[in-house]
């Protein structure tokens, strides 16, 4: 498993992070306080929570993929399958009042922030109670009440937006931090560099998270970026970067905590590069001919974040295989319920076509 390593020659001397490198390690050591621990040193309920949250995202996205194949969802639809450790790990590191913003691959980010899966699915189905009342669709979902600011379809555009959110947090003298996600493809957008510069110049409370899933559509990262270590792309602005095993929710959470603390304590932006992978095509229409089936299979077998946490839970005796099946059944039922609820919602109202263009309703 990739070891998290600090940026070479960076401006900050950050502690190295522990990680999930524990699949084959020895049986749990009882802690002095007697509280049960897993191999990782994490309480079992924490690992169970991580596992559950990731599995919900996986099962929801799988179901969305099926609904798409059945023709119930239209347009572009980008699934998060494979990347669950990033959203879940970062969510565990952030405070609920820390704003989050991302691109179009946003269903999972909505749900980890607390949006109801049926509202997300309802939006995909074009329903009246979809989060955006059927006007946003897969790529444009917002939940400002839970500090989620979208859901943006223009590659890279959310990065200045997140930087502006951080500007507002500082302007208002809060101790909140904005988490801004983007892809390995997006990092080459000019406005990302523009945003990095302003964030560093003004010392804004922001954590940039590049979800390096190795591809921007069909372009492998080394065909798009002059350097493959994307965590170094902030160096020229003095933004410290860190490479993180983005298939390890614990490593993600710990890196997230370090970066959030860095930003929260007034030291400015940090850039986390999450080494992750998407199992499905870029969007539903992509047969993914630019990579081999073996490559995908290998990642699934060796690095899948959900299997890794599940194995750990079993190895450390927290649950057995049967227990995992029970959890999976519960989550599948939860997703089915959300789908049924979404399907039962009324179609988005045609009168909505002309509303919400301006604040006065027109």
């Amino acid at each position, binding site marked *: 498993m990739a070891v998290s390593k600090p940026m070479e020659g960076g401006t900050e001397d950050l502690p190295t992070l522990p990680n999930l490198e524990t699949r084959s390690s020895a049986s749990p050591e009882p802690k002095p306080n007697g509280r049960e621990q897993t191999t990782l040193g994490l309480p079992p309920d924490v690992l169970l929570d991580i596992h559950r949250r990731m599995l919900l995202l996986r099962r929801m996205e799988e179901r969305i993929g099926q609904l798409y194949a059945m023709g119930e969802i239209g347009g572009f639809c980008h699934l998060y399958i494979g990347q669950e450790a990033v959203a879940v790990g970062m969510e565990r590191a952030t405070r609920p009042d820390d704003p989050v913003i991302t691109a179009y691959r946003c269903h999972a980010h909505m749900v980890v922030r607390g949006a109801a899966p049926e509202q997300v699915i309802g939006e995909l189905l074009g329903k009246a109670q979809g989060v955006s009342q059927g*006007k946003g669709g897969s790529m444009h979902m917002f939940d400002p009440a839970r500090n989620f600011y979208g859901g943006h379809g223009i590659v890279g*555009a959310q990065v200045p*937006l997140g930087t*502006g959110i951080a500007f507002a947090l500082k302007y208002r003298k809060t101790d909140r931090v904005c988490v801004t996600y983007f892809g390995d493809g997006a990092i080459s957008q000019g406005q990302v560099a523009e945003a990095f510069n302003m964030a560093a110049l003004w010392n804004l409370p922001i954590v940039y998270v590049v979800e390096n899933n190795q591809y921007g559509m069909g372009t492998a990262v080394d065909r798009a970026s002059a350097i493959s270590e994307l965590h170094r792309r902030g160096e020229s602005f003095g933004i410290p970067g860190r490479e993180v095993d983005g298939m390890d929710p614990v490593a993600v959470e710990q890196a997230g905590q370090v970066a959030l603390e860095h930003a929260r304590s007034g030291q400015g932006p940090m850039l986390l590069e999450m080494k992750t992978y998407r199992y499905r095509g870029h969007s539903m229409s992509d047969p993914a001919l630019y990579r081999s089936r073996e490559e995908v299979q290998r990642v699934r077998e060796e690095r899948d974040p959900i299997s890794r946490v599940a194995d750990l839970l079993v190895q450390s005796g927290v649950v057995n295989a049967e227990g995992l099946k029970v959890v999976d059944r519960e989550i599948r039922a939860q997703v089915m319920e959300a789908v049924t609820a979404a399907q039962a919602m009324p179609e988005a109202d045609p009168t909505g076509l002309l509303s*919400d263009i301006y604040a006065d309703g027109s």
Partner: protein
Amino acid sequence: MREISVREAIRDAMAEEMRRDESVFLMGEEVAEYEGAYKVSQGLLKEFGPERVVDTPITEAGFAGVGVGAAMMGLRPIVEFMTWNFAMQAVDQIVNSAAKTRYMSGGLLGLPIVFRGPNGVASQVAAQHSQDYGAWYAHVPGLKVVAPFDAADAKGLLTAAIRDPDPVVFLEHELLYGESGQVPDGEHVAELGRARIVRPGRDVTLVGWSRGVSLALDAAAELAEQGIDAEVIDLRSLRPLDRATLLGSVQRTHRIVSVEEGWPSCGVGAEIMATIVAAAFDALDAPPQRVSGADVPMPYAAHLEALALPLSETVVRVAREVCYTDV
């Protein structure tokens, strides 16, 4: 009432709103220490400090996006573009982020933001620095587009734009900054989306905005000497377009000429013509006509530039044509 320049009126609107509402701030290139490339933000840094009058790097896409993000959090940014020519770098954030977010979020997320700066032709700066973007932004649902002509409107409309809950594109004009006019004392808020009849008349309607109003007024004065009584309408808002005022005027005059600096093709004049023809065809005594900039990139040489600009003489000629005075 007191007499101030358009430049001062814009500054006063910003200063008064910043005093009134802490969430209002100004950002852009050279707005703070340099006090604006066109000296519009004089005194603001001194009064409000660098946290609220923010010099940005030369990074239009970036700082337009930062403004929109700040507006997502409920701040009320005034984003100054040194000129609108440079905002081409930021059109994505203005159109895709600012204009569409309220709609795409089903009304969950509104964006109270003003993008402002000088628009339109300037003197001999050639193609890349001399252009009217009115039609470009007026095309976009989700934006309001405002273009003041005189000092009172510069203040009243900008005040309204800053208080507005939606993104406003505020098009100023370099050649009008130095023009003075009477501005009401104290708070002065104009209504967005309303045209104004600047000069009532019976024979022909001349409609312009920003510097086009000054061309129309000059033309009207000349036409009066020739016995033609022109009505001049200052559109003030390109989106929404005050169709009612336009139609009402044409019902009285039966003739209309639009005046704009921009290119004719798909311009604001074209939208006005379509509106009139569709809704007041029977009221027309002559085909509606446009006076616009020439359909070329702006040339540099003074004599060539003069050929590319709309002139009040052209407005006079076209107005006489629609009045059939030369037949």
